């Protein structure tokens, strides 16, 4: 990546800059400013979901549903093919005088396999896109960060962002009304 690696005076690698806000409205409007400044690697941390935050952050819709749809339909089709091969070709067994390969009998398992693999894709895809699981997150080293599960709202802009600059990014967060602005070490 083209982005620079910043280090602190003690030689630690900088993960990003974090700023605190007191109210959902403050953090919402600050997020709009960060979005408009063109940052992409950043996040907002809040004790509860804030409606409309995805617009304020300019987050694009996930492509996960498309992936789930494709995988689900593919696996349903493979499930059908599997039954057709097993019951119709490989190991023919007369059941209730029905033909060997009967689409009717294959529907429930085809359906279930479609659902099962859609669910797997949904959960694994969600974890993948959220980069989970992680052993730890640099923000958790900050004591003040624990308050985002209580009464504080935080924005963290990562040093890996191509727009990141220690002074300008700090100034942006200050201008947006951020308090207790601090560097986060990797």
């Amino acid at each position: 990546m083209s982005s620079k690696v910043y280090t602190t005076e003690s030689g630690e690698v900088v993960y990003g800059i974090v700023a605190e806000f007191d109210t959902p409205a403050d953090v919402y409007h600050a997020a709009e400013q960060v979005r408009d400044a063109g940052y992409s690697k950043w996040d907002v941390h809040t004790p509860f979901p804030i409606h409309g935050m995805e617009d304020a952050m300019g987050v694009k819709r996930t492509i996960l549903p498309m992936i789930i749809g494709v995988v689900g339909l593919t696996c349903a089709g493979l499930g059908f093919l599997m039954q057709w091969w097993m019951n119709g070709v490989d190991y023919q067994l007369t059941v209730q005088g029905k033909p060997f390969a009967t689409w009717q009998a294959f529907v429930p398992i085809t359906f279930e396999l479609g659902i099962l693999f859609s669910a797997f894709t949904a959960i694994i895809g969600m974890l993948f896109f959220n980069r989970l699981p992680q052993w730890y997150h640099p923000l958790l080293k900050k004591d003040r960060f624990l308050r985002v599960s209580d009464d504080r709202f935080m924005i963290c802009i990562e040093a890996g962002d191509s727009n990141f600059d220690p002074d300008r990014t700090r100034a942006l967060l200050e201008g947006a009304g951020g308090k207790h602005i601090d560097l986060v070490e990797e």
Partner: protein
Amino acid sequence: MSQISAAGQSHGVGADHPALRSSNISMAPGAGTGLKSAFIGLGVLGLAVVAIGWFKDSTHALASLHVGVITAITICLGATFFVLIFNLVNAGWVSTFKRQYENVMSLLPIVSLLMIPVFVLDYLKGGALFTWMSSAAHGDVILEKKAGFLNPMFFYARSAFYILLWAYITSTLRRLSLEQDRTGDKWLTAKARRTSAWAILVMALSASFAGFDWLMSIDFKFFSTMWGVYFFAGSAYVGTATMILILALLRRAGKMEGAVTSEHFHDLGKLLFSFTVFWAYIAFSQYFLIWYSGIPEETAFFEMRLKGAWPMVGAAVIISHFALPFVIMLFRGIKRNPTTIAFFAIWSIAAHVIDMFWVVRPVVHVANAADPVGWGMIWIDAGAVLGVLGVLGWLIVGKVTSGPLVAVNDPRLGESLDHRNYV
């Protein structure tokens, strides 16, 4: 957000909200006259076609009329179900257009009365449609076992009972809603919920039995415990489609702006989509169990629908009622755009008509090996369906234009006006 005063009077968001300004939620006097004339013209024309058809092939005309009448009844039953369920679960997002559901619901007893001409004509033809009433079925051993339930007296009494019951439930719920328009008493919402609590059980049972009596009994040897659900699934599906169509037309007429938005269409589209899937799920389940067990009385139902061109009609039902809308309506944009979702609403009503056609009509011509579908007189079916739906459309437009488009004192209007899908 709505405010409720200590006196129990709901002031809601009232006329303060720009979307609820009077010009936005009421029709000008004489509005919809053109549409009304078009519908009643279609209705009279269609029914005239049925009358001509009656002299060409009376049994065919009777069955065609039945397809149309059942379609109209299922539309109103679907709307009734949704009013009950919305009342019961305190649904807020529907508040701005709940009145439209109630309008369609209130037509249920009137439309159900169209069963009377069907019964009379069937009686005149000696049980041509409800074959268990015909002299040919007399003495049939299966019918004799069922005679305690399937006898004309009990059958007509049951039908009358359903219609009276529906008239009571729908008029009670509508009266409570209109009273709230006048008085603004928010407790009427709670009262409607209490009524809905018992009414939904009664409606579920009576609608299932109406499905047994009016559709399943046509083939009196056939029975399916899934039939009530099949009837309900079709009703909920076509009821949702009708609602989307009404709202899309109102939006087109420049009304309900800000009161019914893409967000509402999105959720109605989700309902339409879910009932496409639900219908397919239970329709297949019904077929699957019958196919697996292979009991002759049951398989005969599907066997007679494999004759001649009937499999084509069956395939049309599967594709139009499930496969195609399922794939296309998966996409978010389709559901959020009033035009595309209105297209699928019309599509769904047509799919439901084909489904009812597939259920009712085989009984007429299936014995005729040359043309088991009766393509030669398909114009009678077209006339009957368009005729009855024309009458229903005329009634609906009359109801919609008769008062405010929004239940103006509904305590949950704020919730509906602020409604958003966050995903």
